[in-house]
């Protein structure tokens, strides 16, 4: 592929800069109580966004498909307090089985 090394170099340099920016620029900044609470909310916000996009969209379209079965299976295991691996395997199996039942293979 032409230009692949430009892609690799640019993506890599920008990725390193993004991860380093906070620690390098903010240095010894001590967050206030409210700032700490804000930072604590970063994880749930990003994780929720990633989950809903990965489950309900394909590209730039909304798509509700066999992934819903995987979501349901994952939620059941979480309610039952299963381990992370059980949750992942259940979600994958439920999705694969549903796709097979829907004749998507």
């Amino acid at each position, binding site marked *: 592929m032409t230009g692949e090394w430009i892609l690799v170099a640019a993506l890599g340099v920008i990725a390193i800069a993004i991860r380093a920016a906070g620690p*390098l620029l903010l240095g010894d900044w001590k967050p206030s109580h409210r700032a700490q609470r804000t930072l604590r909310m970063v*994880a749930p916000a990003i994780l929720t*966004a990633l989950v809903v996009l990965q489950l309900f969209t394909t590209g730039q379209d*909304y798509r509700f498909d066999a992934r819903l079965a995987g979501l349901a299976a994952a939620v059941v295991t979480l309610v039952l307090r299963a381990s992370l691996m059980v949750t992942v395997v259940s*979600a994958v199996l439920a999705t694969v089985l549903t796709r097979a039942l829907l004749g998507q293979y």
Partner: protein
Amino acid sequence: MKDVDHTSDPSPLSPPASVRAELPAIASVVTATFLFGVTFGAVAGAAGISTPAALVMSLTTFGGAAQMGAASVIAAGGGVGSAILTGSLLNLRYLPMAIAAMGAYGGSRWRRGAYAQLLGDETWALSRRPDGSYDRRLLLLSGSAAYVLWFAGTALGALSVGFAGDVSRWGLDMVSPAIFLALLWKQLGEPRTRVVAAVAAVLALALVPVAPPGVPVAVASCACLIGFVK
């Protein structure tokens, strides 16, 4: 198994114990990272990205969503410029994530910037303590393990192009959301966190049809500002 309450236990837990307790979770996360790496390697190969380029990308960018996003743009016939933009937007979330975690690293700002290179979604979420601070050992240990297995997975995937086929065929597209959901689940106890999650979900879904890939997640991360409201 019965839950044991350790909160009143006065004996100081040594840091390695906290890591040992999380070993099963680390194993799950790095296994998933490996499978995701295989998927990326296969997708990149199918998109016409050479194996050396895919491997160097995994070593330098070290971001599953970003690399997959960039490879998808190339696979769909997009240009290098839009692949760089897509991948970098998908990496933007590491900016607030690194700021949230940097207090745990210790050392000079250069050292902290270097440690932050090991940040990944799953390992970062795994290393978060219930009080919102981050476990340094977990960040570095699970981050390093994920780094090595992400590279190994990429290599296997790139070399097996043609065998793997479509990601969704094996249900591998469910690995990542299942892990994220499990990590998120533990954080939803606080009412304010549930509001943040709901706002983030609405923002992300509302922007999907109109914004380029990566932007919905970056904008949704602003839902954390609800934490700043009194």
